[in-house]
């Protein structure tokens, strides 16, 4: 049964927060008059913003005119999409809120892909856009676009700020909306004359925020944990599926504790990777369309599936009617609208992942040894053995002197001790990165999981590296995605952002080609890809660039890139025939996976 919503009703205002500004007690503090642009930046500084990724334009020039007065580092990207992904990478790497800024019209529209990417993956970020001055709104003025209208379905909230006196409050509300409950991107649009007009509106106090419609998860104990504990106790083959929400809640340690104490294996969604150290005995790794066979088999054979902080996306369920056929499904999510959306749910719990896991820990005795469930663990171990012995556990192509992506990613994993921040793009490179890096910690695997945005890796890695400069950061991308946003090499070099970029270059749109090979009867079209000489391209930008074409060149190239104090690029020329296996075909279920290429020896 779906539990009653654990959401605070609108009529029950949060303590200390009144809806109306006028009821705030105490004398109103009036700020010294300053222009809207200064009020905006003051608001950002008050939210702890130190970096903005942006691109100036006519409508935002009033902001740039006063920007140097504020302790904010503005990173000039080469395209607004790069700014949006960089802000997203900043948010994912820190758990904070990245900020992107663009001018009206084309500038604002170029943010759209990044906003949608952040929305799908519940990433908090704030986008600031300029617009034409109020008298010109709706008159098709130069560089005018209704960006709020465009952004509505791809943001958690989007609004135009029409009153200079509303600027400080709007900024504070944007950050509250982006970070409260299920996080997401917020866009605020400022007409140019709002940025230029004077206002005495002060920085708002927390009690000034007017957000009665913002869902705030009820924090504290989760009574439904009683029922879940009973389900766990009576289960012979339980499995946790850890989603992005566990990491968003900062609850990876709690999840490990629950898994250990209750003796439950843990599979991971694409964005859940890193929740549990992959070498942890309870980890069964990454599941889904290109996930590990043993993880997928565990999903299909478990009798209790506890999904925490995930959406049961089609890339993990396949055909929902055949998904986890023997399992009672428990779905824990902070967003009630996710529960029952994609898969049948036997017990839905609307709660923050951390609260639910804490509630479970409280109810599972610490001193009792976990239930043995020996047969279940032995079964998973057996599947794992088979799965890892398959040719598609690493192609093995390197043994024949051919360069394969799995080998490259594994080598990067070993060189970086498996603890670097790895930002993948979309396609084959994304799956290879997810499967072969060997993640050991949360917040290490950044990827556009929901939207599948090609071109994400390089700018997002840029943001992640700037956000956590002492953490080694790699972008893993294909030659297709790289060419979509490679203009950001200019930003990376100008700012000397220490990102290592590994281009898994097979001169193809690899995943497109893989689908055409397997699903479209080798009818290849538009999947061959010309690209520039990436080493010379890197050098043209003043970027240290290396190339590896043979397995023995991989480790030296990685070492050379890591030895650079600043950014570096490696062009890995892959054997072009490699596909990602196993693979779940569209419309099929997890039990029906293509395990290897047709022409490979089936043993």
């Amino acid at each position, binding site marked *: *049964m*779906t539990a009653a*919503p654990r*959401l605070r*009703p*609108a*009529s029950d205002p949060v303590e200390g927060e009144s809806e109306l500004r006028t009821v705030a007690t105490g004398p109103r503090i009036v700020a010294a008059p300053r222009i809207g642009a200064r009020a905006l930046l003051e608001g950002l500084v008050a939210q702890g913003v130190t970096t903005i990724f942006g691109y100036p334009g006519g409508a935002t020039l009033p902001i740039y005119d006063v920007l140097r007065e504020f302790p904010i580092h503005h990173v000039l990207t080469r395209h607004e999409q790069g700014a949006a992904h960089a802000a997203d990478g900043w948010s994912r790497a820190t758990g904070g809120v990245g900020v992107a800024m663009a001018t009206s019209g084309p500038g604002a529209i170029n943010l759209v892909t990044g906003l949608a990417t952040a929305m799908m993956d519940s990433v908090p970020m704030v986008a600031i856009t300029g617009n034409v001055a109020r008298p010109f709104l709706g008159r098709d003025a130069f560089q005018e676009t209704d960006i*709020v*209208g465009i952004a*509505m*379905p791809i943001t*958690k*909230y*989007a*609004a*135009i700020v029409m009153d200079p006196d509303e600027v400080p409050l709007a900024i504070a509300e944007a950050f509250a*909306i982006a970070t409260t*409950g*299920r996080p997401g991107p917020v866009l605020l649009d400022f007409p140019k004359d709002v940025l230029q007009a004077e206002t005495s509106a002060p920085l708002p106090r927390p009690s000034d925020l007017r*957000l*009665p*419609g*913002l*869902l705030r998860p009820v924090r504290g104990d989760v009574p439904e944990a009683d029922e879940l504990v009973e389900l766990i106790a009576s289960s012979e083959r339980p499995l946790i599926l850890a989603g992005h929400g566990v990491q968003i809640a900062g609850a990876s340690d709690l999840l490990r504790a629950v898994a250990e104490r209750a003796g439950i294996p843990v599979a991971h969604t694409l964005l859940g990777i890193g929740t549990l150290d992959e070498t942890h005995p309870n980890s069964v790794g990454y599941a889904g369309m290109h996930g590990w066979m043993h993880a997928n088999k565990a999903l299909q054979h478990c009798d209790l599936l506890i999904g925490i902080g995930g959406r049961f996306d089609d890339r993990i369920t396949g055909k*929902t*009617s055949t998904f986890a056929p023997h399992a009672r499904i428990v779905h824990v999510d902070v*967003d*009630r*609208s996710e*529960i*029952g*959306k*994609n*898969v*049948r*749910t*036997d017990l*839905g719990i609307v709660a923050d992942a951390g609260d639910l896991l804490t509630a479970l820990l409280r109810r599972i005795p610490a001193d009792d040894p976990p239930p043995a469930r020996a047969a279940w663990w032995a079964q998973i171990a057996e599947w794992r053995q088979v799965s890892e012995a398959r040719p598609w556990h690493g192609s093995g192509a390197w043994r024949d002197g051919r360069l394969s992506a799995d080998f490259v990613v594994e080598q990067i994993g070993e060189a970086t001790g498996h603890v670097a921040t790895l930002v993948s793009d979309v396609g084959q490179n994304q799956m290879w990165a997810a499967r072969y890096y060997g993640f050991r910690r949360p917040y290490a695997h950044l990827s556009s999981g929901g939207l599948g945005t090609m071109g994400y890796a390089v700018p997002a890695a840029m943001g992640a590296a700037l956000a956590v400069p002492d953490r080694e950061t790699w972008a893993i991308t294909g030659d297709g995605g790289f060419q979509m946003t490679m203009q950001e090499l200019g930003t990376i070099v100008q700012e000397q952002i220490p990102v290592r970029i590994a281009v898994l270059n097979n001169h193809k749109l690899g995943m497109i080609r893989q689908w055409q090979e397997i699903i479209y009867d080798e009818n290849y079209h538009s999947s061959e890809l010309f690209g520039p000489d990436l080493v010379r391209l890197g050098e043209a930008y003043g970027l240290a660039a290396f190339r590896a074409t043979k397995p023995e060149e991989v480790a030296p190239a990685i070492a050379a890139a890591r030895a650079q104090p600043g950014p570096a690029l490696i062009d890995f020329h892959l054997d072009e025939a490699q596909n990602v296996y196993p693979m779940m075909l569209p419309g099929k279920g997890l039990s029906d996976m293509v395990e290897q290429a047709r022409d490979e020896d089936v043993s």
Partner: protein
Amino acid sequence: MTAAPPAPSRATSSTSGSSAAAEPATQSRHVLSALVIDRPGTLNRIAGLFRARSFNIESLTVATTLEPGRSRMTIVVRGDEGHLRQVLAQLERLIEVLEVGDLTHAPHLELELALVELDVPRDEAARRAIDEAVARAGGHVADRSDDAWRLSFTGRPDDVESALEQIRAHGIRAIVRAGSVAMPLHIPS
């Protein structure tokens, strides 16, 4: 545009457990009520959610409430019960939406307003016939101009429907319907 007659109310007990994909599509009429923040963009956001799930909005009314800055919407849609439950949950999480619910399966009052423009009756007999039909249907003649008569009917959607049916023979030129407004009937416990 004519509104479809209201579907017979369905006695569906709320099932335990939500089954997403397996649920058979049942297209039923739903009357939703939402308390929302009254500002530009609210209607757009709400309508956008229905559009994204390919729900056609049969009628939508919005007006202010006792509380300043709050509006009440009544939305009538036809669609699959399971999908609608999910849309409701998605509506609930909009910043602009303070509360939203499906009144369909709970006791509620639902009324609609229709305005009708008629040819001016040719003679006294026609005039009497219209007055009687209007009285029978609980409507009234709001305007007896020289160029046309204008009638108004207020009632439950099916009553309005039958009133329009009765008047149809008298030369209807135009109909404007307001769409439903609805409020729950609270049963004291």
